[in-house]
Structure formats: structure tokens, C-alpha cells
């Protein structure tokens, strides 16, 4: 069984500002689990046993249409949106999405009954769950608005600009970045098909605003790219 330390918890950004005593309370509820890449952690429609916090690696949360097409709601990582399973925590209803480890991941699991009982008795735990819900609400609101207002190209540009902010490197050519998702997954994140995404990359290359070689992207003309949204 994996041991969970307070430092392990602090590596997850949601826990960064908690006191040691508060983290000690939370740590007691946690079971650490390892999931190899591509393992399904829970499936859309399953009853929900609790909350999962990604401590290492990445977990994809996605919904599947009756046609089999997938739409990625978010990529959970320790430094941004680390929690999955939040939705059914309070209503006890089924999981509205599937969670899958994208790479070898370590996930901290909190059983639902213990989580709710602890939240009733410890403000720190209630605050944690509040943060999780707020985190997800803000993301999903932005996502649904983006899907409603924009076709694929502006959404792709938006994503490239976000990546540029988070991990772009200024070089003589422009802003260079490496995508951490393949085209299939990128399409799923954008709510599009891989063909649509390939077409959009070509469009941006022809406009001279990016140079794309596989996952390596160079943003050649940042201001022009921003104006295309």
C-alpha cells in the first residue's frame, strides 16, 4: 500500500494553501492508487464511490455519445483541475463521464461516505470540496460557452494560446511549444473530428501564423493569431 505524505498532498495545487493540521485530517481519508496508462478509473453511468485527486500523471474525463464519438471535458493534472468524480459527490447519482489514465498515474481516492461525513465535521474538508466544485464549474461554463460561440478554428486558436501561455518558449522564430496530446485526443478536447482539426491546422499554416510539425508548434505571428478568434 502506498504511503501518502503531507508533501504529496501539497503537490496538488488545490491543497497548497491548507494548514498541516488540515492536511493531516484529509490524509487520513485517502487511499493512494496507481493506474497504468489507458486504465479506466470509472465509467460514464457507473455509481460513484468517491473523489479522485491526480497526484502524478494525467487523467482524461470524457463523455461518449451513442455513436461512440468521444468528447473530452477536461484533462486532470496535479497543477490544474486535479480532481475527478466531483459531480456525483453530493447528489449520489451516477458518474456523468468516464475517467481514464492518459499515462501512468497516481491518484488519491476518498470514499464518498467518509468524504461527506468529514465535510460535515471539518470546515477544511468542506472548503476543499467547495474549491473542487468551483474549479469544475468555471471550466465547464467556459467550455460550453466556447463550444456555443465558436466553430473549431477559434477554439483551436484559443487552445494554442493557452498552451503558449503555460509552456511556450520565446525563440527567434516565435513562440515554440509542444502539445502533450495527439491529434485524436486534441479533436476530442475541441469537440471536433480529427479531420476538422487537421483542416484547421492547415488553414492556420496557410495563413502563415503557425508552423506545425507533429506535436511541435511554432506560433510565428502571435498578434495575427489572436486577431483570428
Amino acid at each position, binding site marked *: 500500500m502506498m504511503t501518502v505524505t503531507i508533501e504529496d498532498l501539497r503537490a496538488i495545487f488545490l491543497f497548497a494553501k491548507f494548514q498541516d493540521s488540515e492536511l493531516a485530517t484529509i490524509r487520513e481519508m485517502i487511499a493512494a492508487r496507481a493506474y497504468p496508462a489507458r486504465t479506466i478509473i470509472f465509467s460514464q453511468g457507473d455509481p460513484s464511490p468517491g473523489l479522485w485527486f491526480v497526484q502524478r500523471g494525467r487523467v482524461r474525463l470524457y*463523455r461518449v*455519445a451513442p*455513436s461512440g*464519438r468521444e*468528447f473530452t*471535458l477536461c484533462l486532470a493534472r496535479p497543477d490544474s483541475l486535479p480532481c475527478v468524480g*466531483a*459531480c456525483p*459527490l*453530493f*447528489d449520489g*447519482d451516477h458518474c*456523468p*463521464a468516464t475517467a481514464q489514465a492518459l499515462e501512468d498515474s497516481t491518484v488519491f481516492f476518498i470514499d464518498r461516505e467518509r468524504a461527506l461525513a468529514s465535510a*460535515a465535521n471539518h*470546515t477544511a474538508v*468542506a*472548503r476543499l*470540496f*467547495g*474549491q473542487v*466544485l*468551483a*474549479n*469544475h*464549474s*468555471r471550466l*465547464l*461554463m*467556459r*467550455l*460550453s*460557452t*466556447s*463550444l*456555443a*460561440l*465558436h466553430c473549431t478554428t*477559434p477554439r483551436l486558436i*484559443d487552445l494554442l494560446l493557452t498552451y503558449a501561455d503555460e509552456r511556450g518558449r520565446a525563440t527567434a522564430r516565435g513562440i515554440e511549444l509542444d502539445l502533450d496530446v495527439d491529434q485524436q485526443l486534441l479533436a476530442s478536447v475541441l*469537440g471536433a473530428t480529427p479531420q476538422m482539426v487537421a483542416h484547421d491546422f492547415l488553414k492556420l499554416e496557410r495563413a502563415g501564423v503557425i508552423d506545425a510539425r507533429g506535436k511541435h508548434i511554432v506560433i510565428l505571428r502571435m498578434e495575427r493569431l489572436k486577431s483570428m*478568434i
Partner: protein
Amino acid sequence: MSAPTTKELKTIPLLTLLRAADLKPVARVLQERAFSNRQYIFREGGACAGLYVVKTGQVKLIQARHNKERLLAIVGAGESLDLVPFLDNGPHSLSAQARGPVTLYYIECKAAHDLIWNTPPLLAAVLHTVSARLRTLATLASDLAFKDVTARVCKILLDQAQTEGTRQHDGIHLRRTLSQQEFASLAGTAREVAWRSLKKLEDEGIVRIERKQITLLDMERLTAMA
């Protein structure tokens, strides 16, 4: 404004499960505020303006991306506007605009925050409400990704049928309370595109569109297309 009674306070869903002792501090700080048509109650990105619950009238919840606005929902009596800032101390996640004259219950931000975090049944109600909205948002996002405009239009009509429809001899009657722009925004599309979808449904005999009402003639086909 005279202090609201316990009975009146308990009609607000967020407060339904609070005991009388918990409702007294709420009654002490609760105010009413009136807004006229199209007036903004608060704006997306602004600092928390306070806790607002609709008393009478309707409020539009709007979000913007890159200078374009989208209608997320229209909320009515008893519904809260934006609870997210009380959970993460962040700014408002959306804008709220009066749709016609509206009266809101209002508690100033700090007082509301203290009440929520020191009154366990109120905190539980807030967490439940945000959680329910989160589930709705997840469905909304995947509908936008998976369904075409016609399917989304059908879904809105079906949702309206459930909440506001009246069954008549020829089908389900829906009063046209949304403007074309509002309807299109809820469907996540442009006005002309939504209108074309509605006309297509009419041409196929699934709905009948009149000036003040839409009649759902064929629920089975409408459901299959949603």
C-alpha cells in the same frame, strides 16, 4: 422593506432546510433590490457583488468569450444567480441581467460568505445547488459537442414542454416567451440557423409555429431527433 417572515424565507430553496434559529441571522441581513429591464446586476469577472436570489421576475445568466455573449440560462423565482464565488473567493463566473423588472433578495458579500460557511445546512444547500448545475453544464457541453443544431433545438422544445407545456387536443402548446435571439443563444447557435431548424421541423409536420405559440405536434419524432 419589513423583515421577511420564516415562512417567506423557507420558500427560497437554498433556505428550505434551515431551522428557525438559523434563519434569524439570515433575516437580519437580507435585503431586497429592484432592477429594471436590461439592467446588469453584476458582470462576469467582477468582484463578488453579494448573494442574489430571484424574488420576482426573471434574470438572464450570460457568459462572454472574445467579445461574443452567450445566454446560459434564464432563472426565475427562488433561484440563485452565482454561488461559485462563495466557494473559491473568486470573481463572478458570469454576468446577470434583468429580463423585465425584477426584484431580488440580496445579502452583501461578506455577510453571505460568513453565513454560508458558519451555517452547515446552508453550506450543504449551496454545495448541492452548485453540484446540480455542474451536472447540467457537463450535459450542455457534450450536447454542444455531439448534437447538431436541430437536435439541440428539439431538446430545448422538449425541456420547455416538460416545464411549461400544456397538453391540448392537437399537441403540446408552448407559449413563445423567448425572443428568437434568446432561443438561438440557448441552442448555442445564430438566430438565422435556429430559425431555419425550427422551420424545417414545421415543414416536416413535427411542430407548428404561430406568433405567440409553438405547438409540438409529434412528440415521438421530436424526441427521436433530440
